[in-house]
């Protein structure tokens, strides 16, 4: 599958042809909206588009040496690209499945030899995977090495690469191993400090020393030598043609690079960083270590005193339920585990009500209700209010905010069932489609059940007058009490930005307890249809009046922003928030624009969470539930372990423990 370049091109490796197509794709900007005219006077609305200049022009193709061979070369390169993209795909897939814990943004994996980090006697070809020797090879002083592009990330847990000996050349003085950045490249791996190698001519291992130790068999043309680094116990072993040769090095330092060294003419080796299946069954070895680490976790001693552990877990669960306002469940749980709830039920229900409004996109009502129930909260916290308003603006664009919905021609019923909205809790892994139905059915019930109070709030929001101070309305409470049954099964939960995956899985757990599963699934299908039917979305639900209201609201928002800046100084987060929101209007189809992600209902979650936390804070309750805190801390610990070189983090994913 690899392209084979003619040998005389070997020095051409410095520019990798494979990079160009991707570079083009990344730099392509979506065309700005041109036709549709909107009565916009706010100049800032277009800001984002103008700012987003194409980052860099497409680089010109590399200057090729001999012009005579040019045509031929190009064809080779083109062909190579096709073969390469396949190979690249396979490589990415394999690396992902082997090293799922590695964050490649932070620590990229080695994918080829580095054209920059090598001795001049080394030539690279075949996408920097093939290494050949081009020095004189007279004495050990002519030895030459090359390192991979990146060091081995600790989060691999177990890392593995293979090298195939294409030709042993004159003497077969080849060394395969590891070295730290900066180790002299005019040497074979293993000869210097922080350098480790296994040499083909004598089968010895070299551990930062000029003299080798008897280690394994010799290797030569046709052999495949593998090198495995265990980042948990910091050891390394080699394989020959798929057979493990046993530990070669212990106490390895962190951040080693895969390295090969050659010393005599004619020596050629090919690397496999995952481009092809490995000869040695590395997955099997990794399975063993995953089991070991997980057994270690399972056996970890917890609380000496009996019951202490259980009590703590129950407390965490209870506080989690309360935090997310699952009042009925929280009540039932507290009762059965004999705990006290540290917040009044009414308060929980209030928060629950607000959260539902936010999550269904009815921001105007949410702000209104918050102001009613927690009169001073938003007054004191103008940044929060600003954030809520920006979200309201976005919901207006979306056509979901109550204000524009009234102006739009759509029936409240259909607007209430946001087919997309439940899915927003579902970050990629969410499976419980049934949760949608709960949300949906709840929403419609809600409308019916609390229509009186809703009418009231709507009236207010029309005028968008400054917050009044209404006394808590009994109607609200009554209304929500009517929802009690729904509440108990209502499982949608706001999720903290860093722990999305977590709460979903717990929500699944709750859901499964429900007895009406089969029916839910049917309803869910119906929902999906609705979704596809509404695929043609219109700005503010398509009503001109709503658009005007939205524009007006935008202006108010703009002036609020200016007001805030005058009073409290610049706030880049607020500025960006507003800019991003306004950018929506720059596109004819905001939903499919680069800033369209804001319209996605998943963006309601952080808003909802921030608001909820702010409310809880006023009651002197924790901003985050201890459970989410613990899960988040575990995740942070793992990424800290990755950064500090503890390889066992590779086999201890938090997700594995949340089923």
């Amino acid at each position, binding site marked *: 599958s690899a392209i084979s370049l003619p040998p005389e091109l070997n020095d051409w490796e410095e520019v990798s042809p494979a990079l160009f197509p991707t570079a083009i794709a990344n730099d392509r900007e979506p065309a700005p909206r041109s036709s549709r005219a909107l009565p916009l006077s706010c100049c800032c609305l277009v800001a984002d588009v103008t700012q987003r200049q194409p980052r860099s022009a497409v680089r010109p193709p590399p200057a090729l040496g001999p012009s005579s061979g040019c045509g031929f070369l190009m064809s080779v390169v083109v062909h190579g690209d096709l073969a390469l993209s396949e190979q690249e795909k396979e490589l990415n897939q394999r690396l992902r499945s082997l090293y799922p814990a590695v964050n490649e943004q932070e620590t990229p994996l080695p994918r080829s030899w580095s054209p920059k980090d090598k001795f001049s006697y080394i030539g690279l070809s075949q996408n920097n995977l093939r290494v050949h020797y081009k020095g004189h090879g007279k004495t050990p002083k002519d030895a030459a090495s090359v390192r991979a592009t990146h060091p081995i990330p600790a989060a691999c847990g177990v890392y593995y690469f293979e090298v195939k000996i294409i030709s042993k050349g004159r003497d077969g003085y080849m060394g395969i191993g590891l070295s730290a950045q900066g180790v002299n490249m005019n040497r074979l791996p293993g000869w210097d400090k922080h350098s480790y190698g296994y040499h083909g001519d004598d089968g010895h291992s070299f551990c930062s020393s000029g003299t080798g130790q008897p280690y394994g068999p010799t290797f030569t043309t046709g052999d495949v030598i593998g090198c495995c680094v265990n980042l948990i116990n910091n050891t390394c072993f080699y394989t020959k043609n798929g057979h493990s040769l*046993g530990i070669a090095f212990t106490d390895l330092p962190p951040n080693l690079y895969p390295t090969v060294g050659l010393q005599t003419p004619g020596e050629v080796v090919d690397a496999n960083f995952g481009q092809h299946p490995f000869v040695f069954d590395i997955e*099997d*070895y990794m399975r063993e270590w*995953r089991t070991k680490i997980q057994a270690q976790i399972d056996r970890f001693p917890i609380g000496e005193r009996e019951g202490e552990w259980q009590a703590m877990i129950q407390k965490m669960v209870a506080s989690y339920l309360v935090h997310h306002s699952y009042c009925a469940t929280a009540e039932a749980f507290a009762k059965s585990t004999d705990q006290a709830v540290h917040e009044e039920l009414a308060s929980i229900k209030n928060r629950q009500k607000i959260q539902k409004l936010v999550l269904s996109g009815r921001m105007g009502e949410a702000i209104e209700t918050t102001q009613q129930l927690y009169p001073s909260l938003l007054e004191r916290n103008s940044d929060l209010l600003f954030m809520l308003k920006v979200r309201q603006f976005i919901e207006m664009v979306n056509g979901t905010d109550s204000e524009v919905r009234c102006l739009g021609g759509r029936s409240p019923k259909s607007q209430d069932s946001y087919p997309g909205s439940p899915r927003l809790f579902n970050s990629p892994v969410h499976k419980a489609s049934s949760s949608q139905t709960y949300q949906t059915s709840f929403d419609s019930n809600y409308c019916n059940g609390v229509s009186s109070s809703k009418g009231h709030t709507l009236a207010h929001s029309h005028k968008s007058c400054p917050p009044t101070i209404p006394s808590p309305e009994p109607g609200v409470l009554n209304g929500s009490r009517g929802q009690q049954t729904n509440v108990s099964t209502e499982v949608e939960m706001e999720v903290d930005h860093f722990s999305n995956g977590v709460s979903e899985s717990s929500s699944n757990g709750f859901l499964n307890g429900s007895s009406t599963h089969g029916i839910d699934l049917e309803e869910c299908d119906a929902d999906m249809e609705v979704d596809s039917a509404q695929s043609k979305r219109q700005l503010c639900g398509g009503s001109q009046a709503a658009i005007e209201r939205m524009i007006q609201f935008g202006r108010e928002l703009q002036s609020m922003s200016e007001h805030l800046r005058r009073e409290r100084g610049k706030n880049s987060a607020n500025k960006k928030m507003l800019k991003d929101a306004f950018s929506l209007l720059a596109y004819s189809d905001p939903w499919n624009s680069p800033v369209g992600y804001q319209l996605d209902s998943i963006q309601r979650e952080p808003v909802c969470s921030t608001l909820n936390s702010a409310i809880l804070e006023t009651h002197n309750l924790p901003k985050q539930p201890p459970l989410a805190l613990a899960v988040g801390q575990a995740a942070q610990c793992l990424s800290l372990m990755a950064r500090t070189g503890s390889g066992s983090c590779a086999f201890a994913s938090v997700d594995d423990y949340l089923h």
Partner: protein
Amino acid sequence: KKNFDMKNAVIGNNRQKANLIVLGAVPRLLYLLQQSSSSLELRTECAVVLGSLSMGTENNIKSLVDCHIIPALLQGLLCSDLIFIEACLRCLRTIFISPVTPVQLLYTDPTVIPHLMSLLSRSQHTQEYITQIFAHCCKTPEHQTVLFNHGAIQNIAPLLISPSYKVRMQALKCFSVLAYENAQVSMTLVNVLVDGEQLSQVFVRMMQRDKPIEMQLTAAKCLTYMCRAGAIRTDDNCIVLKTLPCLVRMCSKERLLEERVEGAETLAYLMEPDIELQRIASVTDHLVSMLADYFKYPSSVSAITDIKRYIDFNSRCNQLDHDLKHAHELRQAAFKLYASLGSNDEDIRKKITETENMMDRIVSGLSESSIKVRLAAVRCLHSLSRSVQQLRTSFHDHAVWKPLMKLLQNAPDEVLVMASSTLCNLLLEFSPSKEPILESGVIELLCSLTQSDSPALRVNGIWALMNMAFQADQKVKVEIVQALGTEQLFRLLSDPDTNVLMKTLGLLRNLLSTRPHIDQIMSSHGKQIMQAVTLILEGEHSIEVKEQTLCILANIADGNTAKELIMTNDDMLQKIKYYMGHSNVKLQLAATFCISNLIWNEEDGSQERQDKLREMGFVDILHKLTQASDPNLCDRAKTAMQQYLA
């Protein structure tokens, strides 16, 4: 009611169990169990109590077996109630897995096995108990055949993917005992599909490194046995890349002592016949030096008791007892594995002998109290003795012949076979140990071996004598002939075992070398030897035997006086003539050699011999042979013809 009390009284209390048995509760329980008039509940309780009693000491089990509990419980299996059946099976399982229970009791009633097979489908418990009984009670090829003929493979294979780990594990164990040295079972196994997957692949999956060690090891055993039985090729990936590495892992320090023993023994067995597997294993995970750790456990009881005095008894003592118990098992397993590793490849042998203290360990292993260790040590020594280099160096340096000679004194046959075979190699001409061995008076011993009932021992005895006689002093040769006695020598020439015959001829040939020795031996034993040669040449023997015999004749023809024994024997000359015209070149060559020696010019009376043989028509034959297509034969004939021309 009484039963319930009884049950609760005995559970977990061995003394109570013994008491109950002494008081004669067992016959009473068995009686109740067998009464079809008793309620099912009562009968089940009886089975449960008996099951509990059987969990006690070995003595308890003996008493139960003496009370004929087995037939009673087997009878109970005919009942239709599953709970009762499970209780009976559970008790039967406990009894059958005890080493004191005679396995044969399972096979006395021929209807039992088929009935057990039919019960396999009843529940996970029946599956677990029955497969466990099978796994423990399949000890001989006959047992394998019985189980195989009753459909063990088809019935047990689906259990390999049972949701219950215990069932999977016991089913796997069944297959390992069924396949051991059984080609029929092994050949059937490779073609079995479990849920659409080949059985060998199911075993490979069970060897994955995250599976329990017990499962990995047993699956590796299954594949090893299938491979050794010829059902899987030794170069199959599931052997080379999976089974072999898995077994090497089982030898690692991280494993339990029992696992290390089993791993090493199975690995030794797997690669015994295949040099390629030996080569791979020798470089896998430092196996050779890993095995050196097998010797780092206490080797003698006295050493242990010394240590015991100094340490606290409760904790570490148990560990030590455990280690001691396994120490000799470990050593013998390591020796076996070394023997297997080094049986073919010179480089591996070198690597083994260079392992720390290796030769010392073998030497002390040869005189250990445990027969198993001695046998394994001598096997290892034998394997290494195939190396010319090792014979010349380490074997001599460590005087391994001394313990070896001691071992030969009164050892059981299996040890003797290995030891004498090793001795054969030590007696090779280039071995520096040959001299001291000769001086230690080994000839008597070897001669006694030639009188053994075991063909292997006879071969080794005569083989060692043959090696000893090669280019030996006259004194040694005379000693051999005297010690062996001509009677025994000629008895060996009519030995039913061809190997014995070949080596005896070899001994004769070595004795009959250099002219003075030939004349001396022929003058004293010429008549018998010529008789024996005639007998063999006239008999139904292989080409190799006849060739060897003709070579002896050629040696005799080289003697000064011995020649006449042939020249005066016209019958023998006719035989030589016949073999010169034989279709086999080797025989022609040997016969021509003989004639060439007879007509050799420089010796007394050569003229007469030449004349006589010309008269008999040998010249014509020689002339014809100068045209032979085989260059050796052609040369030999020409050289002979030149004797006439000179």
